[in-house]
């Protein structure tokens, strides 16, 4: 075989190492008004942020858990510490990051990636950003990439107030409310009119603390005609108690702008990943989501795109791989409100070793979305009969002048393909790994090389022991 | 000289902002049979679609004059009622609607009057005989489960029943075996005999032309008529292929 795409074997310890919780400031577990006020105080919030936190807490307490999707019985917020901070200030110089944290990110390859192919990097460790840096040339073009807390103290304070939790509001669902109450860390990105970044910006989220939650907020505004690729990576060491991730990502794509938002999610398999992502796209703008979901014990994740401007576009390309002990409920939502909008969702899922993958989607085409298009395609691969794979797409169409296509398929690895590869000398496991990597190439070919390699490594790792 | 039935003047046609025809000129007198030849992807089918008014093919410049009238802006159904017919390479399948019900409905639209069931059936069966078609096909759902050859025969059956003034046959002979080509040729002969109609045959091979009287042949290269000649041009191209003229 000429097209061997896989690389050297890696082992899980690359992600699984953990650091002791010493030197950390850690709030007691649970969620009370007192705890929320402590977070607010610790972070020196402006009044409106503190008020939003308290209001969100009320909403959180008044809302029930979803009556659909995977069971959240194993998650008890009273055993989650919502705020954990390393005893360190945010640095813009790598040398100033504490050795232990620096070591963590170096193991994960973060600073190397920055030097090679990124325009800027942010790194969050537990509840706070520990490092943020953009290349000089990027900063000179007026691009802002910093943490939200710092940005609130600059001339961008009003812009943040105007957008923050306006797209994802605390009343959307229980975990959006939780986020509103205890959010900490994350990034603010502003790309001015007409500025096109040649290299991506990246944020890396690491949750090291046991039994803790991470609630970072990402707010990105891409102004008219601008272009940005933003990459988000996440990982955590595995513990035997639940960890929680309830971040929020709010993306504003202005007229004729383009934003590509790529995620390689590799949380440890004790993580409840209840993340919310939403994009609002103006006339002629485009949002592209590239998502690889490999980690987490349980996920609820459906990035939503609201196409409100004429000719706005959305593309969603995703893959989920659920292995033993994982229940990944993922997909996308799109709401098309203006004429000539278009959406394309293309997803793949792989279930193995008793893992559960669910593709859940919503396509909503409003009355005014004349001459719009939507195409959804979803393919699922079952690697054994202990696993589960569900496809739950919904469509709500309110104009006849839209072109709606939808396809879903489910099946197994073709025995003929495995046999063919084995007849060329590959072991059965290698043959299946190769086929699964090929199945996943809708996502890997959209990623920068380093990430595509990381993704293939993850697939290889998950495919270990897939025989017998 | 007989009257000019179709006149195409400096026709420019684009699909999704891509120009495919860039200045086609063509005149076809009433009652003649013309052939349009050319390599694949050169715009022959585009010309066919533009002539019958396919909404995806946008005329950006030029005019189409049919029977003395400018039809460039008219809808496909209006053009059909005026007597333009195209046999499709891949005709539509309509479950639940029989071939015979479809033809009857089309005939009533084109003629503008109701057609008596008995007269219709008689003519339909007589025409199916010419095409060696089993009557049972008329009661099958339009093109559903038809083979490639059956679909082409069904198109020729519609040609003979609707009796248009001008018919464009797009690659009607492609993918057919020798017998089927013979049947389709017989159908085309019958059309000429019954109506004295005018034909434009689009093809890139030329099997179907062997038994037909061809008045003029046109060669299309890159969205333009490159050469025009008599029957001998067909034979020349059969022998040499589509080289650029010297």
């Amino acid at each position, binding site marked *: 075989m000429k097209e061997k795409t896989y690389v050297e074997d890696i082992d899980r310890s690359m992600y699984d190492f953990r650091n002791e919780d010493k030197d950390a400031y850690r709030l007691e577990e649970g969620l009370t008004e007192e705890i929320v006020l402590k977070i607010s105080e610790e972070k020196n919030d402006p009044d409106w942020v503190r008020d939003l936190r308290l209001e969100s807490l009320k909403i959180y307490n008044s809302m029930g858990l*979803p009556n659909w999707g995977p069971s959240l019985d194993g998650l008890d917020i009273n055993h989650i510490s919502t705020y954990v901070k390393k005893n360190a200030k945010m640095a813009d110089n790598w040398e100033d990051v504490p050795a232990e944290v620096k070591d963590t990110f170096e193991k994960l390859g973060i600073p190397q990636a920055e030097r090679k192919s990124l325009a800027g990097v942010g790194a969050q460790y537990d509840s706070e950003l520990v490092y943020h840096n953009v290349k000089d040339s990027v900063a000179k073009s007026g691009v802002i990439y910093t943490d939200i807390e710092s940005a609130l103290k600059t001339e961008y304070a009003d812009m943040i107030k105007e957008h923050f939790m306006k797209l994802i509001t605390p009343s959307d669902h229980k975990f959006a409310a939780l986020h509103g109450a205890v959010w900490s860390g994350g990034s603010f990105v502003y790309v001015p009119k007409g500025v096109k970044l040649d290299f991506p910006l990246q944020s890396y989220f690491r949750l090291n603390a046991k039994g803790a939650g991470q609630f970072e907020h990402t707010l990105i505004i891409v102004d008219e005609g601008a272009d940005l690729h933003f990459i988000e990576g996440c990982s955590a060491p595995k513990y035997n108690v639940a960890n929680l991730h309830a971040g929020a990502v709010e993306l504003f794509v202005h007229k004729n702008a383009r934003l590509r938002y790529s995620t390689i999610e590799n949380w440890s398999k004790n993580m409840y990943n209840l993340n919310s992502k939403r994009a609002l796209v103006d006339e002629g703008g485009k949002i592209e989501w590239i998502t690889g979901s490999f980690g987490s014990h349980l996920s609820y994740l459906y990035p939503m795109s609201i196409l409100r401007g004429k000719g706005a576009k959305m593309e969603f390309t995703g893959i989920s791989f659920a292995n033993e002990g994982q229940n990944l409920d993922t997909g996308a939502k799109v709401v098309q409100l203006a004429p000539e909008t278009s959406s394309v969702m293309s997803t793949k899922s792989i279930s193995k070793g008793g893992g559960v993958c669910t593709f859940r989607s919503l396509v909503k085409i409003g009355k005014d979305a004349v001459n719009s298009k939507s195409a959804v395609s979803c393919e699922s691969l079952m690697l054994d009969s202990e696993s589960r794979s569900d496809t739950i797409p919904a469509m709500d*169409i309110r104009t006849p002048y839209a072109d*709606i296509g939808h396809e879903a398929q489910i099946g197994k690895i073709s025995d003929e393909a495995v046999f063919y590869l084995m007849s060329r000398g590959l072991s059965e496991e290698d043959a299946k790994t190769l086929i699964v990597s090929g199945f996943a190439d809708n996502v890997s070919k959209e990623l920068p090389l380093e990430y595509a390699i990381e993704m293939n490594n993850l697939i290889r790792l998950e495919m270990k022991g897939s025989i017998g | 000289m007989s009257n000019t039935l179709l006149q195409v003047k400096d026709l420019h046609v684009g699909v999704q902002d891509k120009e495919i025809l860039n200045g086609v000129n063509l005149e076809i007198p009433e009652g003649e049979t013309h052939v349009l030849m050319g390599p694949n992807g050169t715009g022959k089918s585009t010309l066919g679609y533009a002539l019958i008014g*396919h909404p995806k093919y946008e005329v950006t410049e030029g005019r189409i004059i049919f029977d003395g009238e400018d039809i460039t802006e008219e809808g*496909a159904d209006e053009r059909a009622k005026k007597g333009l017919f195209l046999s499709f390479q891949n005709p*539509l399948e309509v479950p639940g609607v029989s071939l015979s019900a479809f033809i009857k409905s*089309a005939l009533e639209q084109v003629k503008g009057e109701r057609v008596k069931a008995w007269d219709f059936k008689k003519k339909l069966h007589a025409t199916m005989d010419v095409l060696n078609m089993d009557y049972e096909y008329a009661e099958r759902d339009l093109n559903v489960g038809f083979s490639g050859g059956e679909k082409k025969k069904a198109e020729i059956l519609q040609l003979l029943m609707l009796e248009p003034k001008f018919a464009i046959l797009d690659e009607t002979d492609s993918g057919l075996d020798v017998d089927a080509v013979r049947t389709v040729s017989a159908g085309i002969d019958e059309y000429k005999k019954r109506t004295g109609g005018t034909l434009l045959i689009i093809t890139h091979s030329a099997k179907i032309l062997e038994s037909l009287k061809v008045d003029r042949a046109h060669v299309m290269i890159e969205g333009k008529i490159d050469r025009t000649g008599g029957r001998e041009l067909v034979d020349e191209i059969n022998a040499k292929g589509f080289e650029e003229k010297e």
Partner: protein
Amino acid sequence: MKLNKLPVRTFNHIGMNEVNLDYDPGTYENIDFSENGILNLSGHKDAKVTIDVKENESLSVIMNYEAVGTLNVNTDINIAPRGELKLVQIDASEEGNRLINEVNANVGGEGRLNIIQILPGRGDVYSGATAELTGDRSECNMDVAYLTRKTQITDMNYVANHRGKETVSDIFANGVLKDEGKKNFRATIDFKTGCAGSKGEENEHALLLSEDVINGSIPLILCTEEDVEGAHGCQIGSLSDDVLLYFNQRGIDKAGAEKMISYGNFSRLIREIDDDVLREKTDKLVSEVL
């Protein structure tokens, strides 16, 4: 009462998980109809119909509905091994009435269930069918044609539970929405553990002919078995340019093309009515409402 429940819930805000109907059933009339023929059900009533198909037996049953008020019919079907049932259900209700039509079927080994629903009626329709493909190599086919016009509601829920080995299901709904019609189509193929070698397919065509229609679709594929094949496809919208062109080219305008395609949806199924009088009557009704 709650009906047409989606087997697995999803987002609540889209309102497709189930129907909450303001209706309390009274006493059910029990009807055993394990024979060939036509069962006419009309008026305002609640009925439980039982159809038993014996081993190797082949039955053809037509249920003809004319609701006045609410007609609520639950049909329980049991098909013994190698039995075969063709069930044609026709709704010919007048405007302002509503039909609740629920079918639950169990299909034994190598048994076959063919449900054809022809829904040109003028009232609201809540129609569901669940097939338990219990026996190995059992099959079910659900083929539906509907027309939703004025302020009509057509709410559907079809479920194929693949339990036996090498079972086959095929769900196909073909419909037209006009005026302020509101339609929900739920379809579920559920490959349960142990159904190795099974295949399921669900398809939907919905032709939308007005700016005020509401079209909901939710086609589920649930799977806990490796060796299966499931597929779903749909086409929703107005007539495509290519379809319209072909009609136009033969002189038929847009309205004529829409009517012909809509008629075709029904006529394909009307042919399956094994009774000349009822077939002609239904054909006439379809022509009227179109």
